């Protein structure tokens, strides 16, 4: 058949668009909308931008981003940075897919019924209007903005992102999720001992003669640190890893010591006992720099035996003795303290006992030595985006704090006034908080939930309005690390895709709308140049610390290292009340702890839930970030439970059997991976959010507090690894 004839029969007589009868202009009018007359200044060149990985990660990498015609074509490590040394990790290398993921949230949208999946696209103006009206009506009804609750944390640690807190401060006194889920017990422990957290430059690890990696898995979570550990080994250092799991880091050690989970303090005190009994301690250093040594000596002599430590930890006596002797006699010796072991109800005390080892051996304040946990020395920004005053006449008196580690319960229990609206940013409580079922209830109890995010996830699913936010590549900023001493500028490499906005732009837009509806109702600036705002974060102290004249100097190489203060406590001036290292801390007692680093009994498994589950970090993600990207899925898209073969046999579980792990609050069903790498009495499920999978280990996790965290972070930590469960084959 002639195709022209076929077409003629297909397309009947109507010709001119204006001639259509009865259909109206709406269907026949054509005008250019998305396309415009080409501009002559189209940018066709290839440029390289400086970026910074803003994730909640030790390494905070300096990135070079190649942009061709406005499109990112490559990311790589910035070789100017001697910590990250021109290399990114598996997650960092996936950044183009993170930016260009087809799953990006592109436009502001409103859900017709929380959890229904029925979304309609709205304009930014509609979004601002609905949110602003709700804020004003809450203020009208309750007399203050306290019913509005902010839950924001570590999704993006770039400094301008504190503008989210600033936005909430600008509308009045609000309720805030306070604290940190990750590391608070250890922070308090070091705060009681040293005055604050202040690790040596991790590049200094190369000067160590003996390194204990205690409860950290850098091979997965800080790949660049591994380089310096390896360099130290080349220089003759011995590498010891202490962990309940034979991690990839442990596999690279000279000595791996597997201990019973949560008994780290017993091992440290057993070592201390050996060191003190054999007079391997540094009396001179202690006399000059510490208080409470005699009391600590008395405690250890009277209460600790190596036999006891061995029994508690499952580590043979001779191993403890050898470890103690080697550690105490190798100078300098370095302990790298991970965050895993402080995620127990006795976690803070565990860290204090380990700190004590460094103190009694005189390893503190020295190159190659130390008890390294983290540092905030390089974070002395102005927090210009964050610091804003409430409007004049704001009621409520002060912000109301609720515990980020028991967020859902605190939200539901809040009274006078109750919490009616939540703003979620840089956070995914539906996957990352304990007691997921309660979290869902808290969301359900709200009048309005607004979530600003990059991708659809279970928290967005439970929101009324979602606001699309920019990636690091689409907005300027500045980043520092809580581990190394570099500062990385983050340049805007490409235009924000679709209708995405940075959190600061969102704050400005909302402020404009609030002021339009009620003049003076929000103090946040309604406009501003974001790059200029980056400059406003700097001050003379930072310039002096980093040897800069102007923040724009950073643009030359993209990354700059602090020029001083690279060895923690080198000057012997501690930030404790006594100014000394405090083996005896009155401050600790004020917060309900013993004055000394003592052994706080580990939690015991109840009879019906006899197995401990620990949920450490997974190699392909940071919490709920990255594992959902297709590249990660192509490496692994199946959550699993690691079980020691001995334990598995007891429950009749074979490799790859489906296992239900449960307790009284929830369950999760995953295939079993039998491995001798895990502890015989501890199962492991790596915490992660897998897209489109009904998996979340936190359904079984109770919000049990750890012993410390209140002083420095405002709320106690969470005992993530004191999760007691049972298992069965299903």
């Amino acid at each position, binding site marked *: 058949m002639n*195709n*022209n004839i*076929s*077409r*003629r*029969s*297909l*397309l*009947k007589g*109507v*010709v*001119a*668009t204006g001639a*259509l009868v009865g*259909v*109206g202009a*709406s*269907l*026949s009018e*054509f005008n*250019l*909308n*998305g*396309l*415009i*007359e*080409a*501009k002559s200044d*189209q*940018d066709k060149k290839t440029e390289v931008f400086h970026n910074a990985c803003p994730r909640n990660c030790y390494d905070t990498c300096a990135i070079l981003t190649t942009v061709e*015609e*406005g*499109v*990112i074509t490559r990311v790589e490590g910035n070789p100017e940075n001697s910590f990250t040394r021109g290399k990114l990790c598996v997650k960092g290398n996936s950044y*183009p*897919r993170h930016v*260009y*993921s*087809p*799953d*990006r*949230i*592109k*436009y502001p*949208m409103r859900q*017709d019924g929380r959890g229904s*999946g029925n*979304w*309609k*696209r709205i304009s930014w103006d509609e979004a601002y209007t609905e949110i602003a009206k709700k804020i004003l009506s809450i203020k009208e009804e309750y007399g203050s903005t306290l019913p509005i609750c902010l839950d924001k944390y570590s999704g993006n640690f770039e400094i301008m992102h504190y503008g989210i807190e600033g936005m909430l401060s600008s509308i009045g006194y609000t309720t805030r999720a306070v604290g940190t889920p990750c590391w608070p017990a250890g922070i308090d422990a070091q705060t009681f001992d040293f005055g604050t957290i202040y690790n040596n430059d991790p590049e200094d690890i190369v000067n160590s003669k003996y390194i204990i990696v205690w409860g950290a898995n850098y091979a997965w979570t800080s790949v660049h640190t591994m380089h310096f550990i390896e360099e130290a080994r080349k220089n003759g250092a011995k590498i010891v890893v202490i962990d309940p799991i034979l991690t990839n880091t442990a596999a690279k050690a000279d000595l791996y010591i597997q201990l019973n989970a949560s008994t780290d303090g017993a091992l440290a005190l057993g070592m201390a006992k050996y060191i003190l009994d054999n007079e391997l301690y540094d009396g001179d250093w202690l006399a000059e720099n510490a208080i409470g040594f005699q009391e600590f000596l008395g405690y250890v002599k009277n209460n600790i035996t190596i036999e006891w430590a061995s029994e508690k930890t499952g580590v043979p006596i001779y191993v403890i003795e050898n470890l103690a002797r080697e550690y105490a006699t190798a100078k300098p010796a370095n302990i790298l303290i991970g965050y895993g072991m402080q995620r127990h109800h006795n976690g803070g005390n565990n860290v204090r006992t380990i700190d004590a080892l460094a103190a009694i051996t005189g390893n503190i304040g020295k190159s190659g030595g130390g008890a390294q946990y983290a540092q905030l020395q390089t974070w002395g920004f102005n927090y210009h985006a964050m610091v804003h005053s409430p409007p004049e006449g704001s009621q409520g008196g002060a912000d109301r704090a609720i515990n980020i580690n028991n967020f859902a319960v605190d939200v539901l229990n809040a009274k006078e006034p109750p919490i009616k609206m939540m703003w979620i940013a840089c956070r995914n409580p539906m996957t990352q908080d304990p007691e997921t079922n309660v979290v869902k209830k808290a969301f359900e109890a709200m009048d309005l939930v607004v979530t600003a995010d990059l991708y*659809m996830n279970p928290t967005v699913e439970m929101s009324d309005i*979602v606001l*699309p936010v920019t990636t690091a590549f689409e907005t300027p900023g500045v980043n520092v690390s809580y581990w190394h001493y570099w500062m990385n500028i983050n340049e805007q490499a*490409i*235009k924000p*895709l*679709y*209708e995405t906005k940075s959190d600061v732009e969102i704050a400005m837009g909302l402020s404009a709308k609030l002021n339009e509806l009620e003049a003076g109702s929000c103090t946040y600036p309604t406009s501003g140049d974001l790059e200029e705002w980056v400059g406003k974060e700097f001050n003379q102290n930072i310039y002096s610390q980093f040897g800069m004249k102007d923040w724009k100097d950073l643009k030359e190489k993209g990354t700059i290292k602090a020029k001083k203060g690279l060895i923690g406590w080198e000057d012997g001036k501690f930030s404790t009340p006594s100014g000394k290292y405090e083996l005896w801390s009155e401050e600790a007692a004020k917060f309900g702890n013993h004055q000394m680093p003592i052994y706080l009994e580990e939690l015991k498994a109840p009879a019906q839930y006899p197995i401990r589950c620990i949920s450490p970090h997974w190699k392909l993600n940071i919490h709920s970030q990255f594992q959902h990207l*297709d590249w990660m899925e192509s490496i692994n898209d199946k959550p699993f439970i690691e079980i020691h073969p001995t334990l598995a046999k007891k429950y009749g579980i074979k490799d790859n059997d489906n296992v239900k792990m449960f307790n009284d609050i929830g369950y999760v069903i995953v295939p079993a991976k039998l491995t001798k790498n895990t502890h015989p009495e501890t199962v492991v499920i790596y915490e992660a959010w897998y*897209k489109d999978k009904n998996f979340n280990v936190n359904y079984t996790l109770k919000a049990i507090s750890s012993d410390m965290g209140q002083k420095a972070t405002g709320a106690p930590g969470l005992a993530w690894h004191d999760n007691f469960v049972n298992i069965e084959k299903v």
Partner: protein
Amino acid sequence: MVQNHKSKHHQNKFRFQFYLIFLKYYRNQLFDKSIWPNVTTLLTDNIVSKDNHFIKIGLSLINDVDEESVNNAIFDFNRLFVGPGKILAPTYESYYRNTEKLPMQRETLQVRRFYEMVGLQVDDLGREPDDHIEHELEFVCYLLNNNNEELYYDFFESHLGKWILNHIYLVLENSKTDICKGMAYIFKGFIELEKEELKYIRGGVTVE
């Protein structure tokens, strides 16, 4: 010759009107109770016959829909093309043609070159992918409206025609409403006929 010219001219007007409807559909401008019935009328009475198998199915699906169906179709439309979840039928060419399956790839820039040929570019270049279906349909409408038939054929052969059926396939696989399904069937029928037409006109050119 005159006759031929006129016929060609008419044909481009049909094409233009057809693409225009789908441009407006993908712009989400049709889901309105005052507009939707006209879409059905236009497609049924004026633009397409009921001869084509897919068009026949499509028309039967979009006829006689009530207001609630239109409303549900909006949610379906958003799940398929807008978000905020993973979009079920991605709306840009590079997803289908580039091994990376991402927006903003080589094909996106190739499409940018096409727009430049007639002095056009995407507004706020770099925010929305140039090869987004809305831009490609708008470009096609622009070409047909300006009787630039040759460039339309070129563009269809090198771009739109190379991916749109794969997109429609995903729509048909994932849509839950008669309206979105019906529109996909009609679009499919039209594109297949358009491909045959091109084969006839340009002879020997294979279009995937």
